[in-house]
């Protein structure tokens, strides 16, 4: 079975209901050769099940097929950013933070506040740099706990590192702080060659996409503040 995910033709042997369901919208019937082929063998399933007895086959497939996809993405000017990504007026806004900070909570507020907005990927959007140098967010079938993802590729308006506060405020982030947070919310490959590719991609992303720190609460105003802070974002210099 072939799929078109983030502009890449991916061959995957999908067997179980969850990934079947979530990858349905990404099916590809064309003749193009796959950029990447991912096969999870029976032995692989058995090994993962032994290491993670709380999981079942369905979850193992969903987690590790995704993991293999994001590892491969590094070779195609792409990277994973653990974040919730909302699209509004044709631009993608990514909110990244460690688990439990409230990424999804924040983008759910956008859906309420801004009719017409939608979640591109609630947990693991792919970022890709196109030939024209524009940085895009891409929906993928792999969206963490929720099944919220849309098969679409959308230019990125900005990335926010999210923190909680009682009031809502947004500011440009210190580049060291941005690097630290982004590298902690992606998958770091162990091989030097792959790490090199990831850092090259990240370099382009950070030169072209404004990154902010957003502190927010759970009120409707939080979406207003983050949208206003990011909508006209231009990368300076």
């Amino acid at each position, binding site marked *: 079975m072939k799929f078109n995910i983030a502009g890449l033709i991916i061959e995957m042997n999908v067997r179980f209901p969850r990934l079947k369901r979530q990858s349905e919208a990404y099916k590809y019937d064309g003749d193009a050769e796959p950029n990447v082929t991912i096969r999870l063998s029976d032995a692989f399933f058995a090994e993962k099940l032994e290491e993670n007895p709380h999981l079942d086959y369905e979850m193992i497939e969903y987690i590790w097929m995704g993991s293999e996809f994001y590892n491969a993405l590094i070779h195609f000017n792409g990277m994973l950013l653990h974040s919730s990504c909302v699209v509004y007026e044709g631009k993608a806004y990514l909110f990244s933070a460690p688990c439990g900070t409230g990424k999804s909570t924040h983008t759910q507020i956008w859906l309420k506040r801004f009719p017409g907005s939608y979640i591109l990927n609630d947990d693991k959007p792919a970022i890709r740099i196109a030939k024209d140098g524009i940085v895009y967010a891409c929906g993928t079938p792999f969206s963490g706990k929720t099944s919220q993802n849309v098969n679409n590729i959308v230019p990125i308006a900005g990335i926010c590192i999210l923190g909680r506060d009682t009031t809502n405020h947004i500011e440009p982030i210190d*580049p*060291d702080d*941005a*690097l*630290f947070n982004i*590298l*902690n919310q992606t998958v*770091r*490959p*162990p*091989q*030097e060659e792959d*790490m*090199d590719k990831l*850092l090259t991609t*990240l*370099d382009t992303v*950070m*030169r072209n996409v404004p990154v902010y720190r957003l502190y927010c609460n759970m009120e409707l105003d939080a979406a207003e503040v983050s949208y206003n802070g990011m909508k006209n974002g231009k990368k300076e210099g």
Partner: protein
Amino acid sequence: MIKTKKGFMLRSVAGRHVVVAIGQASVDFNGLITLNDTGAYIWEKLAKGTTYDALLKDMLADYEVDEETAKKGIDGFLDTARGAELLDED
């Protein structure tokens, strides 16, 4: 001889100098070190392996600083790097 431990690489990302771990080193260290220009200069020398005296000599040749300032810079860097267990010394 002082040398940075195997498994760390220095790259420039968005105008910053970043050190990350790869291979076996990334199992123990999944943090991130950012360096200023001088720090990156010292790191590059240490990555190839050098001695304290050779490093000092290089710095005095490449930077317009007096010996005391150069030593201070090197000592500060080495202290931090030793604290983070980034160096092999013999």
